[in-house]
């Protein structure tokens, strides 16, 4: 039976009030989460910079290395900070060590900490800026500091870390760092449509992709594109102004094992 008009209107107002209160609750939640992610990024950068090897390289850095960890990796557990033990030592860990041995200062962060809260296919603007500031801070240090882009920068992103790696590259070139001084290694990346294009033609981009008859990797990659608007292709604006797809090197490995190869090298035994 239909209720009295006055009662229905009152009920509607009550429901609208509850809706608004709940919307406000969720808005506060998402804002707070983004804030804590920025703190996570800052903490991971701080942990990287206080690594003894990095601290000794800081006096005269030969370059800056950034590693954005993805699937099943965690900066605190991967052994990238000095002598701490890795639970799952991968070649990304070896890569960080090798860069440090060359005199690079390395920064290692988690892809999920860098992602936008509620929109995991894109990195957060504030997170990327925090990371870019750290890179620029290191490149301004040492005897080559202050020469604007004189230090080489090597950025590596795995899995969901791919979008953050592209966004960081673009942020640095926008700041005035020369594209030619940046090497971007993308390892089987999952990126959003706003972070899959390298804007500077000078950046050296290396892309590896999981291929082969791995149903989970291939089938679910298609699902990822469908469900969350992830993209698997990387693009770069060329010297002639056109946008082209970056050619990938294929590896007959499932996605989960793609962090066990050097971006430029062959599959490890």
């Amino acid at each position, binding site marked *: 039976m239909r209720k009295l008009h006055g009662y229905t209107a009152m009920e509607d107002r009550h429901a609208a009030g509850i*809706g608004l209160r*709940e*919307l406000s*609750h*969720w808005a506060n*939640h*998402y804002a707070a*989460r983004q804030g*804590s992610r920025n703190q996570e990024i800052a903490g991971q950068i701080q942990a990287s910079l206080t690594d003894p090897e990095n601290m000794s390289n800081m006096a005269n850095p030969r370059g800056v290395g950034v590693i954005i960890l*993805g*699937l099943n990796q965690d900066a605190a557990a991967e052994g990238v900070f000095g002598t701490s033990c890795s639970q799952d030592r991968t070649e990304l860990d070896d890569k960080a060590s090798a860069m440090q041995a060359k005199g690079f200062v390395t920064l290692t962060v988690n892809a999920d900490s860098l992602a936008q809260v509620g*929109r*995991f296919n894109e990195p957060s603007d504030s997170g990327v*800026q925090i990371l*870019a500031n750290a890179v620029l801070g290191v490149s301004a240090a040492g005897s080559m500091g202050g020469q604007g882009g*004189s230090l*080489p920068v090597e950025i590596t992103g795995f899995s969901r870390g791919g979008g953050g790696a592209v966004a960081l590259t*673009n*942020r640095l070139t*926008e*700041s*005035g760092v*020369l594209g030619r*001084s940046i090497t971007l290694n993308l390892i089987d990346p*999952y990126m959003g*449509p706003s972070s899959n*294009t390298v*804007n500077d033609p000078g950046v050296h981009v290396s892309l590896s992709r999981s*291929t*082969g*008859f*791995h*149903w*989970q990797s*291939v*089938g*679910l*990659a*298609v*699902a*990822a*594109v*469908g*469900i*969350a*608007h992830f993209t*698997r*292709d990387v*693009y770069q604006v060329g*010297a*002639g*102004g*056109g*946008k*082209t*797809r970056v050619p*990938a*090197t*294929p590896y007959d490995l*499932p996605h989960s094992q793609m962090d066990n190869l050097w971006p430029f090298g062959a599959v490890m035994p």
Partner: protein
Amino acid sequence: MYPMRLRFAWLLMVLQIPEVWAGGQVPTVTETRARLAELGGFVIEEAEGRGPKAEGPPYVRTPREESLYQLARAPREPVREAIDQGLKGGTKEEQIGALTLYRWIVSSSGSYFPKEPLNPSYLPLLYDLLARDDGSLAAYTGTLAGSLSLYPTSRETILVYMALAEHTADAKTREDYLLLASGEIGIDLPIYKQTPALEREKILADFEAWFAKNKNQIAFDEGRSVLAGSRISTRPRVLTQAERQRIRKDPACVLELLQVSTAGMQVTDARAQTLLNQCGEALFGAEGAKLLRSMKPEIEKSGTATFDQQMGLAAARAQYPMIDAGLLAVAYVAADDPDPKHRELAKKTLDDIGSPEDITRVLKGETKEVRKKAMALADEMNETGG
């Protein structure tokens, strides 16, 4: 107290205002147009391999890079006007320079120089310039076509890429445009650095044939590919009560499948298959789950899904609100499932997907108890930082 001149100089240093402005004079539109033409010339030189050798370290800006650096930081009003005039009535060099700068400032974050808003009136202008382009200057065609990607992809843009691929005599350019078109549509062409020429050609020809057959069905929803058909809506609908019940039956499975499908979690192939069979319909909808299951034999045979299968999933996404299904699963785990592992999965997913508006909308049809428990889970995350 510093003298006034010194304080101004300090301010300029802090703000990193480039020399064009620091010199005290704002360049005129005419001067800026000349600089755009100069930039266009540098772009052509580099594109044709006639530019300066880029070496380093130490790295030094090429003339193109220096020009772009300065123009992006120059006072924006005359720059904007110069771009507009150059695009509408300039030489090819000037148009290249204008579009190169336009792309750079539109794509920027705004952290180091102002981000330029997208000018909607340039899209039809680009189509028009491309229609009148004789293709004699590769950098010009490339810059025009490349600028289309600044705008949400449309069917018209895809047709332009396909036409450019069809009419070019250069094999690499043809491949570039076909890869661009297929990528925008959402089809992954399995062409890699090592793919032999013959196989490469076959994949491209297969895509061209597929496109010729399906081009009338290509459609985009706010730049995102959907395979339009007469009965397929481009707008995801709301979940029905029956679909909500299907998610409530096994929300933890829905969350695990969502994470596995989006590179957030690693399981064995057998486990992925079990998840898909167990709750695939709840996450992907009946049509999407059926398609994913049907891909298995094809992937095991050829290592890739067919074009139709890939596009079918895009259509399934348009028919079924997958993200809403994931958010609802979060709420159901919060309400009914005390398993700490499942609750962790729910927290991770809540961080990953949705917005305040999304979750409020999705939970609107649920009981007060479910909504309260979902909010309590969010509070728990904020209190514990986990």
